């Protein structure tokens, strides 16, 4: 049975701006950029091979986007900086420093590209964009050039309301990553987390862009709302709420402005994890008197128990195939990680190092089999580590500045979000999978248990 809960989800605030912008791809030579027209455009696949020499990094130049009409200046500046920031975070390409661009931008005709000069400052790829406003519509044209091949390899025109400037820029960055190297970018993804910024005695679920912008509340019930988990289509979030007293499992359908509580029986329900195949949610319940793991279908039916142990069994996370679940148990006396299949069988222990291991997150990458979690080495601080199933090696990603916990992978498996107390209070940070490139995403209140949302491609 589901309990419909009204007026608990602040809708439309986040996703009301769904009026998607329009993007068209076009081939070289269109839109009056005469200089490029003579160049033949190779197929993208050939081009990847030529540009992606694995023995050296690939350098990309992204000069500030040009302004086609004067009233587009602020948008042009916003879009330029968002694209730059996205490409910098993605860490796929080395960015040629902007101060070096002047040499290559001497031509009096700004549309003409001096490929030799760009090559002289080390650029392999050049991104050029032009921003203008026509009849209150923001229009951005973006072109990707292969410098040594001296050709345009991609061009696209984006149109949308001026309020969509940041989203348009993230879309552009994702397109650049796909077109220039076939990388799946995460620049349009969102991160959900719990925040007490509205008051010390409550926490609400918030959603923000992956880069920390546009932080918006999803719940507003002044209770304790914790541990969000995304549905794989990005249209719903599961989370725990204390609004009815006992912590229980709730679903927020974020595009429909509707919420429901799943009936998981007596006892508390905590730490939900939505399966990557979308069908089930794993969670911890005390309905049988002790913290055990259960599965429930996303529609609230078909509840069943997975673990049978008098110790604590909690913090489930799914393998990318949805066939295995990793979780935490204190059955040996301290919290350690285990994995089992979805029948509760084939139990094996994963973590042996450290006196305290919890909050596992299984990499969604099909190429790498690895799991990130919070680990306490002896009596030291709590840090994020990653265990690689193939090499059986554990690498440490954070090093002892405050407590670092609750990691969650980006959908392309290249980055993680996590909570850190390094600045004196719990805040959300992101980083690369090798621990580099750590960035702070939240500043107000205490913010915990980030969950990186899926790549949805909803704006195509």
């Amino acid at each position, binding site marked *: 049975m589901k309990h419909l809960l009204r007026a608990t989800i602040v809708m439309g605030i986040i996703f009301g701006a769904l009026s998607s912008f329009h993007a068209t791809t076009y081939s070289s030579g269109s839109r009056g950029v005469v200089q490029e027209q003579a160049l033949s455009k190779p197929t993208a696949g050939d081009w990847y091979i030529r540009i992606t020499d694995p023995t050296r990094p690939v350098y990309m130049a992204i000069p500030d986007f040009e302004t086609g009409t004067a009233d587009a200046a602020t948008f042009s500046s916003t879009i330029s900086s968002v694209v730059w920031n996205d490409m910098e975070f993605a860490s796929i390409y080395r960015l040629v420093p902007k101060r070096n661009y002047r040499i290559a931008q001497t031509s009096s005709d700004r549309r003409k590209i001096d490929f030799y000069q760009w090559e002289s400052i080390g650029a392999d790829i050049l991104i050029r964009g032009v921003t203008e406003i026509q009849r209150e519509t923001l229009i951005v044209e973006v072109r990707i050039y292969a410098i040594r091949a001296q050709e345009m390899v991609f061009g696209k025109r984006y149109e949308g309301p001026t309020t969509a400037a940041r989203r348009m820029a993230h879309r552009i960055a994702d397109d650049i990553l796909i077109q220039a190297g076939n990388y799946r970018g995460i620049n349009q993804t969102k991160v959900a987390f*719990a925040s007490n910024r509205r008051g010390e*005695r409550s*926490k609400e679920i918030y959603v923000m862009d992956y880069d920390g912008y546009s932080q918006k509340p999803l719940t507003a019930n002044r209770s*304790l709302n*914790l*541990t969000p988990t995304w549905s794989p289509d990005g249209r719903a979030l599961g989370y*725990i709420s*204390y609004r009815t*007293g*006992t*912590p229980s499992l709730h679903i927020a359908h974020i595009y429909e402005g509707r919420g429901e509580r799943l009936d998981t029986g007596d006892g*508390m329900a*905590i*730490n939900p994890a939505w399966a990557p195949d979308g069908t089930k949610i794993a969670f*911890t319940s*005390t309905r049988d008197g002790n*913290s055990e793991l259960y599965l429930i279908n996303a529609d609230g039916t078909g509840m069943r128990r997975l673990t049978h142990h008098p110790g*604590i069994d*909690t*913090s489930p996370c799914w393998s990318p195939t949805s066939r295995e679940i990793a979780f*935490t148990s204190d059955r040996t006396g*301290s*919290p350690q990680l285990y994995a089992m299949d979805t029948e509760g069988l084939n139990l094996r222990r994963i973590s042996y190092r450290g006196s*305290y291991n*919890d*909050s596992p997150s299984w990499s969604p990458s099909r190429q790498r089999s690895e799991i990130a979690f*919070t680990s*306490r080495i002896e009596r030291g601080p*709590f840090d994020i580590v990653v265990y690689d199933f193939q090499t059986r090696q554990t690498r440490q990603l954070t090093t002892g500045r405050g*407590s670092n*916990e*609750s990691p969650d992978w980006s959908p392309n498996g290249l980055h993680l979000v996590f*909570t850190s*107390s390094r600045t004196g209070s719990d805040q959300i940070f992101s980083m690369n999978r090798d621990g580099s490139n750590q960035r702070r995403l939240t500043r107000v209140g205490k913010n*915990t*248990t980030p969950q990186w949302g899926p790549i949805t491609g909803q704006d195509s």
Partner: protein
Amino acid sequence: MSISHVSRNLWMALLFAMLVGACGGKSDRPPATTSTPPTRTTRATAPPPERPPEVIDTPPPVVDPGDDLLMIAEGDPLGIRDMPLDQINDLSPLADVPFDFDSVALLDEARVTLNAHANILARYDSLTVLIEGHCDERGTVEYNLALGERRANAVYNYLINLGISASRLKTISYGKEFPKDPGHNDQAWAANRRGHFEITGK
């Protein structure tokens, strides 16, 4: 909590300790080191006159019913009978009980405190209580939610075994969400690893 509340709490605790000590001095206290909570042992704390305690094996009374202390004890020793719930909770008549890091075992001092709580709950036999399990900030949000539940349960089971009716007690875990002391040191962590008691009805 204001200073006056603290001192008032101390006074109440002292007064009650005196009462319990005077009245129950010769009764069998559970040894502090036992790992399982004792079953209810009878103490000669004065029962509400209209309702004798439910006692299975009644030892002989150790205090003369004419004792002055007993006369005081028969009334409202904590002075909370006529207070609204909020005010009672501000006074925290049931003090927090501590835990060790990553542990749900009841410490000796926690058992002593819980014995006193059981006496209060026996005397004020209409009070209903929410037992909150709390953790310090070390460790994860996720695991601490489960740990706090176990702490609340440990307290709950101990009180049940002392004869408090299960219908009067509920448990909840707040994990590490609501620290009592905002500090980041041993002293704060010790204060934050606690079973806390919220009076929910009287």
